[in-house]
């Protein structure tokens, strides 16, 4: 039994060994890194200044580069290779895994679901975020509204999954509904039949997408609102003086000036929704045709132990993200005046 340091309400919640490890990570790692820099800098003093300046940057970059290469660059290349191999990575199978992804019926549903997420999650999250940003800009309680909308960004998708599973809770018609949505709709429309939102195949994907929208609208609202505040008031005032109404001002002035911010929000949402995993894992675990790419990859990896297919699915994700990656790199290149 490890030495126990913290024992509230019975049970040992924190052992001495774990605390020591955490202290090593929090205190010793920065100390070792600083020591490494100071020592190497001292060592550099003994060599000629011209060589010193050529070597120095690489010393400073080294810790980050080792981690980036071992955990990102090499694994990405390795996964591409594994995607061309069989389940146990022992035999080259060419593009067979990709053929499976685009022909298997189950996989096609997975791709369809991701497409739903991509289109509808992104559309509603951007539009709602923009709506709230624009409307709340006109009221005195703006910060209170924004705090409430933004709140879900702070919690995990796992907690959000529990919250919404409870919202969608279903009892057969006639029994008391404890799920907020069924109870609310039953009270509002007497003829409404309570729905098993997460089980009914015509509704469950939408029910999951709603959770995503609830989580991320705050994100798009915050960024769009910051963009909105950057539009000079004098511009809007001038348009108003010329007799433009609020709708004309919104579509002719605000929207065009916000277009680059909207692009940033949209691309960020697209990247994130492509990899959506937690909410589906917690709420349905992909059953009843709700599976998405990331969940299918997890299943191929752990449940079916098929590393070839799992890798091919990951490569599909990467390929889908490459246009955004190129866009980001271009945007950064022009922003910083670097020429590439």
């Amino acid at each position: 039994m490890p030495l126990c340091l913290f024992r509230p309400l019975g049970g040992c919640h924190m052992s001495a060994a774990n605390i020591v490890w955490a202290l090593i990570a929090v205190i010793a790692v920065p100390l070792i890194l600083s020591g490494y820099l100071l020592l190497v800098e001292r060592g550099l003093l003994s060599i000629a200044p011209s060589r010193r300046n050529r070597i120095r940057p690489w010393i400073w970059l080294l810790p980050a580069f080792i981690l980036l290469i071992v955990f990102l660059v090499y694994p990405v290349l390795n996964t591409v290779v594994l995607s061309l191999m069989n389940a146990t990575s022992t035999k080259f199978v060419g593009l067979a895994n990709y053929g499976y992804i685009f022909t298997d019926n189950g996989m096609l549903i997975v791709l369809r679901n991701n497409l739903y997420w991509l289109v509808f999650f992104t559309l509603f999250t951007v539009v709602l975020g923009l709506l709230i940003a624009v409307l709340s800009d006109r009221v005195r309680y703006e910060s209170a509204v924004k705090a409430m909308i933004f709140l879900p960004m702070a919690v995990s998708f796992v907690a959000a999954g529990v919250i919404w599973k409870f919202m969608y809770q279903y009892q057969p018609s006639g029994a008391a509904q404890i799920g907020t949505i069924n109870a609310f709709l039953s009270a509002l429309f007497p003829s409404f039949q309570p729905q098993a939102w997460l089980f009914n195949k015509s509704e469950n994907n939408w029910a999951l997408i709603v959770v995503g929208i609830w989580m991320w609208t705050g994100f798009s609202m915050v960024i769009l609102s910051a963009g909105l505040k950057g539009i000079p008031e004098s511009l809007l005032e001038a348009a108003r003086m010329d007799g433009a109404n609020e709708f004309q001002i919104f579509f002719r002035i605000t929207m065009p000036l916000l277009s680059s911010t909207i692009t940033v929000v949209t691309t960020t949402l697209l990247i994130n929704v492509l990899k959506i995993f937690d909410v589906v894992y917690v709420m349905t675990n992909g059953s009843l045709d709700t599976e998405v790419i990331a969940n299918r990859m997890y299943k191929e990896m752990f449940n079916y132990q098929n590393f070839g297919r799992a890798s091919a699915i990951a490569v599909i994700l990467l390929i889908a993200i490459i246009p955004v990656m190129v866009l980001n790199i271009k945007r950064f290149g022009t922003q910083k005046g670097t020429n590439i």
Partner: protein
Amino acid sequence: MSKPRTAMAGKRTAGTSLLAVVTSGPLHIILIALSIIWLVPAVGLFISSLRPQNLITTTGWWNAFSTPFKFTLDNYVHVITQANMGHSFFNSLLIAIPATVMPIMIAAFCAYAFAWMNFPGRNVIFLIIVGLLVVPLQMTLIPVLKMFNVLGLTGTFPGIWIAHTAYGLPFSIYLLRNFIGELPGEMFESASLDGATHAQIFFRLVLPTSVPAIASLAIFQFMWVWNDLLIALIYLGGNPQVAPMTVTISNMVNSYGGGWQYLTSAAFISMLLPLVVFFSLQKYFIRGILAGSVKG
């Protein structure tokens, strides 16, 4: 271009005339309705977590407001002592704190070199890091898991610390390089004229002046790790001894099925710290998000 509006200066003065009240009515209704819709799910969860089991499964949470009031803390006591939530809370802390400190330190060195040192390939390498920002982590899971299995790091805290550190690096480097690159160059020139070395400039000038950026980054990274499920699920395996709260709760969802009294209280425990961080450090949290959260 005139100066951007400040928060209050841009407000249309709603409510000054009767006409304004009538026309701005729908505006207020839409905003208040949306706020309520956004808040209700979380409020329902919190109230349910305080209700006894027999009531939570037979009546809606909104009935809690009708007399007789029946609230209890038993659900919390149960999940903390019986369902591993107390242990998992500390596991989440043990995972998230080192996984926040380590990438920031490593990224700061790297960002300083990118911002204030000259070396061949500087721009190209930095653009590669910008590209790595959006690489799906799914691309790395199998090779890294294989490596961890060989090294015996699967299911251990150091394993997940290193993984989160590496995954957090592209965003940390990107954010800190932008901030450090904007610091005034004269500051560095006068310091190096006085004979300060790069190490001295970094520790005495750059780190202290970068505190606002580091704070935003630390909060962002902490929340990301705290709320992460996928990385913990894969690199920690099913070991309940090291499971953070996200993993424990998702296991509860599968095994308890309809045990709402426990699920709601467990979910609320996992939200406590993020909510405190959100309400006390909102400014830094939002600044981190604004800095371009395109993290993989």
